């Protein structure tokens, strides 16, 4: 079990969440300004998951995420400017501008994407964990995916294979209640995703994904389990996206009162309140952090704006590794 964070850690955790929130809001703005294009899936409301889990990982652990992965990249330590530049399609971006919002990569921190095929990242994670296991490295490979992915065959296959081979993989289901416009109960006959772990003899738990400390505690348990050689783990985090699925949708598929109910449990506010009541955070800490974060975001936007386009004659480079550079 994770001990309560100390004041420094609490500060850092709040900072992670504020960075994500401010970054996502900036992305929305930049999308409206048509500097970001394509699909744009924002993480507002779900910050406590990435912030609760990723700081507990080792630098050599691996992460696979979805198209809704800005927050994961930021918490993992990918430079915010490089992430924004990626969304601007600039070669200073973390995927050289080629991937955009859905395909953030960073080999240095072992972030293996940004996978935009729903459930497509689970098998990759199994393989990354297999590589660690076979090479006797004490790493954990973490896969983030939405609850919509739990219906895909690869969810079933991957959990089985990981459990069968007792691989060091942590599967994190970010259950934000909707897959695009489809409510969980309209896509799953059994809506408790973590219970599906029983089909594979897999350890699992569910946690309030709006409560950063709860996520952190559950994640520590899960990571200890996996790193301790006890096989994979499925952690379901109940959460909610505060914005539309991708940049725009009319959100007719969900009720305003449902949105309001979840918004009332904003993970940033919840954590700030709790950390303050625990004496871990000064009353004005958030304000100060917010200013810091806003400045970082502004700098990231400026960095992206100053970015350059990859020359067109490099279009075919890196289709293969040996393409002339």
């Amino acid at each position, binding site marked *: 079990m994770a001990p309560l964070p100390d004041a420094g850690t609490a500060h850092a955790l709040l900072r992670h969440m504020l960075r994500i929130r401010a970054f996502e809001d900036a992305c929305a703005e930049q999308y409206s300004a048509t500097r970001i*294009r*394509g*699909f744009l899936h924002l993480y507002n409301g779900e910050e406590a998951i990435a912030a609760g889990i990723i700081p507990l990982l080792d630098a050599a652990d691996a992460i696979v995420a979805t198209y809704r992965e800005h927050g994961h990249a930021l918490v993992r330590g990918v430079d915010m400017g490089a992430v924004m530049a990626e969304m601007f*399609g*600039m070669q200073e971006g973390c995927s050289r*501008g*080629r*991937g*955009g919002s*859905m*395909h953030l990569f960073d080999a240095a921190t072992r972030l293996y994407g940004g*996978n*935009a*095929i*729903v*459930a*497509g990242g689970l098998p990759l994670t199994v393989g990354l964990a297999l590589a660690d296991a076979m090479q006797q490295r004490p790493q954990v490979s973490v896969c983030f995916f939405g609850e*919509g*992915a739990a*219906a*895909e*065959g690869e969810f079933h296959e991957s959990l089985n294979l990981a459990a069968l081979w007792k691989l060091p993989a942590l599967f994190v289901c970010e259950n934000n209640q909707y*897959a*695009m*416009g*489809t*409510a969980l109960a*309209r*896509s*799953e006959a059994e809506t408790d995703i973590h219970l599906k772990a029983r089909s594979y003899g897999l350890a699992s738990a569910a946690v309030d994904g709006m409560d950063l400390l709860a996520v952190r505690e559950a994640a520590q348990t899960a990571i200890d389990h996996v790193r301790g050689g006890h096989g994979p783990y499925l952690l379901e985090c109940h959460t909610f996206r505060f914005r539309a699925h991708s940049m725009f*949708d009319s959100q*007719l*598929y969900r009720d305003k009162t449902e949105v309001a109910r979840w918004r009332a449990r904003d993970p940033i506010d919840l954590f700030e309140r709790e950390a303050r009541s625990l004496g871990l955070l000064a009353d004005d800490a958030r304000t100060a952090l917010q200013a810091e974060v806003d400045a970082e975001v502004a700098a990231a936007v400026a960095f992206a704006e100053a970015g350059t*386009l*990859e020359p*067109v004659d490099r*279009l*075919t480079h890196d*289709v293969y590794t040996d393409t002339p550079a």
Partner: protein
Amino acid sequence: MSAATCTYREAMRQALRQALADDPRVFLMGEDVGRYGGCYAVSKGLLEEFGEDRVRDTPLSESTFTGAGIGAALGGLRPIVEIMTVNFSLLALDQILNNAATLRHMSGGQVSVPLVIRMATGAGRQLAAQHSHSLENIYAHIPGLKVIAPATVTDARHMLAAALADPDPVIVFEHVMLYNADGPLDAVESVPLGGAAVRRPGRDVTLITYGGSLPKTLTAAEQLAGDGIEAEVIDLRCLRPLDDATIMASVGRTRRAVIVDEGWRSGSLAAEISARIVEQVFYDLDAPPARVCSAEVPIPYPKHLEDAALPQVDGIVAAARGVLGRG
């Protein structure tokens, strides 16, 4: 004949609405076709109009809801399965190839699979490497399937009915860049499933294309006309079976062909058309058929690279001039 104009999306929605209204065996099933109204908003309003039984939101399970469409067709229904985009259809390709396309022949003709599978295809919206494929030739390669690519508002309005009337599985490709396109809705009752259409007559060179590349090809033909080159533009409409007669009649006359295909060049449908032209009218050709295809790269996100990866008007014009020796 033009009665009115509407968008391709609206035409497709009208086609769906009519199909659902006309035949109680027809139903629509796929991810987010109901509450959400379709990922490209094609089916907006249909759930409200026809109810949950006829407009079915499915879980994210491409292989199974496609296979269920095959089973439902075996069971006497006329399912329309929507796979959001061709990119995700690979998850269902086993069902499509090994079951939908195969059951009739393999059973000695005992069963038919009257199934329609619609999917969006193509690039142009900066959706990057996992959302921008044009994999038409993978499907056009498969015996037992018919494959169509309505490229005009009128075809969008009417080809679905033809597909549903067909007793065999039909794949419908809808290019993502066409949905917002406005065009005339011709006052016709129906259009045939098969057969290419000459969208513009011309005598100097034949430009052969389909789907999302049709508007670009027509624009290229305009530009060529400005140069005194009269290009004939053929819209394949149906990618399997191909309408050899229309192609050969045109190329036999113009003696020159350019094929425009958003698929990756190697192994493309354009290659098949080139091979057929050479097999059938080799001695009438004044130049080898040219291909304008996508660059052989996963389609990148940024606009300048996406544009560079796809067939564009300039490239079509240049290829046409090239086969005319005026490059």
